[in-house]
């Protein structure tokens, strides 16, 4: 019981830090202390944090490599945009917050369906098939979206493939993407999504299902011998991550007036993977820090003009060197060991 309490306390402290960071940012925006360019970055930062946290669930916790996370993001973005426009036209939902929440739910559901469709055949196999198939999925979904046309006519939705001649106002027009999106995404909503995804991921990890997911990662054969259905739990992690990515995508889509499918390229998937790897595979809080820093960094490096990407690359290398430094590692190792010993004493004490 004592141990349970301790992990809860740790989580509460971490949540507290996130909330304090939010309050600081919000007050900076309100007082006008934040630069305009950085202010525009706030929602994308939230989106990338959620993307990194959800990808960490697949890569770090279930131990499968997914290279098409941006694909789920794009499914969420476009279904969210369409849902939002339809809700306003057909059901007259004018409340922006409600519309955004509903759009995010729709985005999450559609991305989740895509996750199930990919997961069912692939997660039955062993090895690197998931990486190959998700890579292909990311590319295929982008090309399919390039050919899709959606329009709204008096609350009725029209869909066509490769044919731009459909009645009504265009919502999504092929390669141009979604145009005339009403920008209803806000920083507080982004923050709410971060908290939501953190609660989902942390609670999942610290539960029976989460332990089963980690067991399949650490030793598949032993997990099967313990009666754990490996495919089911890998699916659970993969689809949960897809749903969260879809919700983040919906938020992202409604932060801009135009969104094209080309925004969700392979590069975006790799960028999110970089956040996860740099933050530490399996380390949720590390993902948050890496996603924040590496999204803000290109903005801050504007002063370097043409050398921006060069400096960015150097920073990446430095971060890698620092996190792999034997001296720092041994220092962290000692801290972790001391913590472990404390635990031991505590458990022993509880028994006496």
């Amino acid at each position, binding site marked *: *019981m004592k*141990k*349970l309490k301790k992990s809860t306390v740790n989580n509460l402290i971490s949540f507290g830090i996130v909330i304090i960071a939010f309050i600081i940012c919000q007050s900076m925006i309100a007082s006008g202390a934040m630069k305009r360019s950085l202010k525009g970055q706030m929602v994308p930062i939230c989106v990338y944090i959620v993307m990194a946290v959800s990808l960490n669930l697949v890569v770090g916790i279930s131990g499968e490599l997914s290279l098409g996370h941006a694909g789920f993001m794009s499914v969420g973005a476009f279904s969210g945009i369409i849902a939002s426009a339809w809700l306003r036209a057909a059901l007259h939902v004018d409340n922006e917050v409600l519309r955004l929440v509903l759009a995010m739910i729709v985005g999450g559901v559609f991305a989740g369906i895509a996750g199930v469709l990919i997961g069912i055949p692939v997660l039955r196999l062993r090895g690197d098939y998931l990486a190959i198939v998700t890579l292909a999925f990311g590319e295929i979904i982008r090309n399919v979206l390039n050919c899709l046309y959606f329009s709204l006519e008096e609350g009725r939705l029209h869909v066509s493939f490769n044919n731009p001649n459909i009645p009504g106002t265009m919502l999504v027009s092929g390669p141009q993407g979604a145009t005339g999106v009403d920008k209803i995404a806000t920083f507080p909503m982004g923050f709410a999504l971060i908290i939501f995804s953190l*609660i*989902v991921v942390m*609670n*999942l990890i*610290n*539960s*029976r*299902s*989460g*332990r*089963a997911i*980690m*067991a399949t990662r*650490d*030793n598949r*054969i*032993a*997990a*099967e*011998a*313990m*009666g*754990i*259905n*490996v495919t089911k739990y890998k699916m*659970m992690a993969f689809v949960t991550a897809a749903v969260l990515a879809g919700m983040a995508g919906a938020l992202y889509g409604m932060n801009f007036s135009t969104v094209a499918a080309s925004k969700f390229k392979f590069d975006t998937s790799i960028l999110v993977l970089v956040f996860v790897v740099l933050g530490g595979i399996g380390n949720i809080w590390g993902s948050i820090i890496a996603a924040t820093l590496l999204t803000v960094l290109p903005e801050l490096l504007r002063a370097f003009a043409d050398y921006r990407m060069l400096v960015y690359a150097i920073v990446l290398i430095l971060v890698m060197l620092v996190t792999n430094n034997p001296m720092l590692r041994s220092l962290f190792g000692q801290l972790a060991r001391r913590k*472990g010993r404390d*635990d*031991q004493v*505590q*458990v*022993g004490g509880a*028994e006496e």
Partner: protein
Amino acid sequence: MTQTEGKKRLLDTKMVPAPSQGIIPERDLLSTPVLEARHLGIEFGGLKAVEDFNLIIGKTEIAGLIGPNGAGKTTVFNLLTKVYQPTMGTVLLNGKDTAGMNTVQANKLGIARTFQNIRLFDNMTVEDNVRIGLHNQVKYGMFTGILRLPGYWKGERRQHEKALELLSIFDMQDLAGVRAGSLPYGAQRRLEIVRALATNPSLLLLDEPAAGMNPHETEELMHNIIKIRDQFKIAVMLIEHDMNLVMGICEGICVLNYGRIIAKGTADEIQANPTVIEAYLGKKKEG
């Protein structure tokens, strides 16, 4: 089938000829046995790793599987737990045919195992390792866990209590919060047994449980295996090279060589069996 072959098969199936020697009253070989393997075999591309393996294990029996290196002992375990699908024969667990089942289904039917090369979840705590064993014993769903519904707290508490109770068999409850990978070798082997027991099996397969243990630890292990059998009323089948352990606690022993059973019987019978001596020590020179 020739007449002699048919007669041999009949004789081969039963492992312990006399039912119960009065050690445990629950023992009854006449009721459905825990495990029944009939003509079990597997071929790997023409190589017959195990062939015509016949065995019956009673409800609370401790059985030993011995043989020289490469005889196919672990392959038999892999066949019984469905890591490999047998190419010949059948396995009945508690009277149910396991044909077409996978490892997970076999485990749910009541077969649990440990591994020759320890396969713990190294980065998790000792308690979490046992909790993973309890996966199908104390259940609650994914959404109950995410939403922290009352079922979550109840399930977690039950798992915690059960895990500590199981760990106390080996006096390991004080190590519950320690990372499994940092345990000493002997403790890791014991934890593997606890984890297997947590799945509530009716047959426990131990793959070289005493490997790497000193004589004192082995002695303790022997007591513990008997204790587990008596307390949980389960059957135990073990692969072991330590003959003191095998001859000391196994009520029936089965000797495997080149994938075939060469002898079956009690410890005394096995020790006197010339085929077994030949398999282990080689043939005596003529004259």
